């Protein structure tokens, strides 16, 4: 998926809904993110395009809510509850994910295997 600033992004996405888990007074999702427009995209080990400053899932807590919901390491988060995540700073993404007043986050994620699966099946690409 190439990314050109100012151009609409096309990607095969998967919807993932994660029920936050309460730990003490924290709500946790059970994964960690990397990336953001303020980060060095060259250090992102998951992105195909090393200029991609998107938010990526870097780690997943075993048995955590994210894993249960089907999130995978290396997924690129496109949206969080409808908010675009492809042009945000790392901190903005973190905040968007950790809103205390939301128990559920709905993610749109894309990953290589999705695209491949779609391409292989000659299916149409979902656009958004």
């Amino acid at each position, binding site marked *: 998926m190439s990314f050109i*600033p100012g151009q609409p992004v096309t990607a095969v996405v998967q919807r993932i809904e994660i029920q936050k888990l309460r730990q003490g007074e924290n709500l946790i999702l059970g994964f*960690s993110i990397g990336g953001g427009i303020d980060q060095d995209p*060259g*250090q992102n080990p998951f992105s195909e*395009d090393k200029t991609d400053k998107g938010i990526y899932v870097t780690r997943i807590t075993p048995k955590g809510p994210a894993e249960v919901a089907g999130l995978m390491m290396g997924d690129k988060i496109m949206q969080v509850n409808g908010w675009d995540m492809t042009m945000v700073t*790392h901190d903005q993404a973190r905040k968007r994910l950790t809103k205390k007043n939301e128990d559920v986050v709905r993610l749109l994620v894309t990953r290589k295997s999705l695209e491949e699966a779609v391409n292989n099946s000659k299916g149409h*690409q979902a656009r958004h």
Partner: protein
Amino acid sequence: MFVWAFLFSLRSPLRDAAIQSNLSEPRLPHSTCGVTALADIKGKAQPIPDMEDYDVRSAASILASVKEQEARFEQLTRALEEERRTLQLGRDNPPPNPATSQPLAWQQVVMQEQSPSNATSMAMMQEPQDVVEETVTIEEDPGTPTSHVSVVTSDDGTTRRTETKVTKMVKTVTTRTVRQVPLGPDGLPMPEGSSPLGSYTDSIDRRYMKNGGDRFITPQASSTLTRSYNNSYNDSYGETPESQYIRHYGLHDGYTDLTDNYGSLSRGINFRPPRYPYMPNSYRPENSYTLPNRKDDYGHMAQPQVPMGSSTVDLNRSQPERFQPEPYGLEDDRRSFGPEDEEPYELEPDYSTANRRTLKGANRGRTHREPLRDGPRVRGYPDEPIDTELIDERHPYIQGIYSAPLAQPERGSMASLDRMGGRRSPSIDSIRKDPRWRDPDLTEVIAMLAHPIDPVKSNAAAYLQHLCYENDKIKKDVRHLKGIPVLVGLLDHPKSEVHRKACGALRNISYGKDNDNKVAIKNCDGIPALVRLLRKTNDMEVRELITGTLWNLSSYEPLKMVIINHGLQTMTNEVIIPHSGWEHEPNEDSKPRDAEWTTVFKNTSGCLRNVSSDGAEARRRLRECDGLVDALLHALQSAVGKKDMDNKSVENCVCIMRNLSYHVHKEVPGADRFQDPSAPQAPGSAGPQRKKKDDAGCFGGKKAKEEWFNQGRKNGENDKNYDTLDLPKRTEPSKGFELLYQPEVVRLYLSLLTESQNYNTLEAAAGALQNLGAGQWTWSNYIRATVRKEKGLPILVELLRSDSDKVVRAVAIALRNLSIDRRNKDLIGSYAMRDLVSNLPSGQQRPAKNLEEDTVVAILNTIHEIVTDSSENARSLIQAQAIEKLVAINRTSQSPRETKAASHVLQTVWSYKDLRNALTKDGWNKSHFQPTATATPKATKNGKPGYDDTTLPLMEKNQDGYSTIDQRDKDCKYKTGDSSVDLTEREPLKNDTSRKHYIRSNRPAVSLVDACDVKPQPVDSWV
């Protein structure tokens, strides 16, 4: 040996190309003069001289000679038949003259012609040998096929002409069989073997046999036959079907091969029979030895060759051909090639293995051959008149120069030498096979390029390629003999075999320092022809050859614009874009493709790299070439993504980008709109100091001064804006040349600077930032700020520690341009000063790294730029212990430019009155900061000339300086370099580690990032 040789020959052209690439150095564009120079040259393509008209040995004369040869052949065939009978009779009889005087079969034939009586005896002698050989061959046969295949494969592979030749050989073998038949019956199972053959199997094997046995077979004498041979053969033996002959004689390879060879080579040449009786003797022993060896060789060689192509196909082809009576079909071609090819190839191997380096061998050959020259005339062949003519014409060349190249192979065997005495020298192998054989001389080879039969052309071209490999003399000779227009003409030949080989020859010819060869190719419209072929062909190998040739040609300045005019868009469309993975209209469904670092891409990018240095016009053409910049950028992004950025292709791409980035702010269409509006008015606070600095600057032409001055003012103005500067919003993605200076490229170059291990790539990437950071327009402001925000300054500073002189220089100049940005200047002054200073020589000792004068000057100028307008930076300079070094340079440097640059820095430092106290405390006084009496005037005189002619602003001037070293600098470099070699060798390690340690511990690279730009750095946060 044979196989080995093949491999070598194959490799050699490649090596050539590689070398060439090294030669072609990326040059920063500095002048546009190339364009003008080209104008004359550009003239329209001249009609390619007709090949036939082209040489004295015109097609007509060749045909005539062929006919004569055919006639001769008939005679020979008759003689052969007689011989056969004699042989059969004499089989039982022991050879009258044992080894000593055994003539080869072919010799016998010859003898018969000349003196029939002798012939008989000769035949007798031969028989025993033949038998022995044949046995060997038979054994080999099983194994041979493999080797055969491999050989054939090579044909398909195209590149290896050697291989091709082999194929031809096979066919020839068949022919041989026929002739040998008489011999075969004597000692060998030949009839049996032949019968099953179906010619196919045999033919293949033959080939081998030929390799092994040909030498023995000597019968090549019969070779006098021309291509017509087949026809004549049929005629003479018309009663018996060919198949019969084949069966009976199939085993004997030698004869046919020789014939074939003859035809293809120069008619005139082939016919000479060995005059010298002793020759046979020497011959014989070799044969016995050689056979086994050859077999071995084949086996080995064959395998390596196999991968190259699909030999099977060829084999099939050849087989049917044998059966066919038609001489001119494919078979003919092969035949013609056969002997020659063999020889050259074999020779080639020798060359390559032995190394062309042993060119002396060639000389030897020549010497020996010369006597032979007369041979043809002496003989009373029917052909003679024609031959003589040809020979005479050739003669001058032959004796002196031309024959020699071919002779080279001979050096290997003494036997060949002996023969040589008799004849023109054949390759070693050929000699063994048949003393009569000799390599065609250069004139003959060139004449063969115009031969009506395509395989002859292609073989001749392949042989030329071989001869020209790393042999400047022969290249020159080919040029003088007007071989180049013929080769260029062959580029348009429809048969791939022909244009491929021609292209290969042109590539080798175009390689090297002799620019006349390149001009010769251009003058006969070789460049458009190459480009045409590039459009036409899909054969990767041909494309490699074409682009390799263009790369070679592009190293000569006057040809650059020609290449741009004819080939730029084609190279871009045919090679750069497809191989870069970039797509005009990216398909949303497909992911972006990665660049493929193919040889074709490497060659083409190398060519473009060279032509991109040909001045403003060349840069304009490249920038505006549709898709070029986009594709190059895509390729580089892909290289970064794959972390594969040390290869030559990447280096070429970065160099092109660097060159195209030069003067973008002046040369790009619409650049005016982006000129910094604040430039004209609003003198900055820096004004006075700028001016002062300028006066002190070593680049101080009046005009340059003013420009620089203006720049300074602009800078002062702009600096304040940087932090708030927002990158321009784009409504649509930029494309084409706009991509060159978009802030996005900064990240690309920084990635390269971080990851690449290739000094040239590092230098070019730093040079690109340097170019982009120069000038006063909106985009350079963005670039300078972006480098900072992308944390590029620490990366650059780190590279100041590079062991590569040119990298240090490029980085230093880039830092200087970047410090036009006020915040950059502050950061660099605070954090990079020690690294800059540590590159300076201390006292009389050259710097640890033994940097060139250019580099030292660049660093001094950068320091000067940094301390100008900033007493803070001047203070850090003092703290970095720089004053001592600067004073030492000012006083003792042998280089006026260094002296001058150091002096400027010192004056600037002294101009800060608040620093004088500290300086005085350290024991310095005013005199230390004043130009030394002797140095300065000297500097003005000697230092300026290199730059005086330019009106470019300081930094741009410097660019030129670093990209193209002017002559004077070079001289200095060499002078100074030698003295401190030892230092360089041991110092770097020590120094490097200590410095690194220092920096790492005390001043983490991160600190060089502007505080304002530092963002929270959560690499990773749990949610």
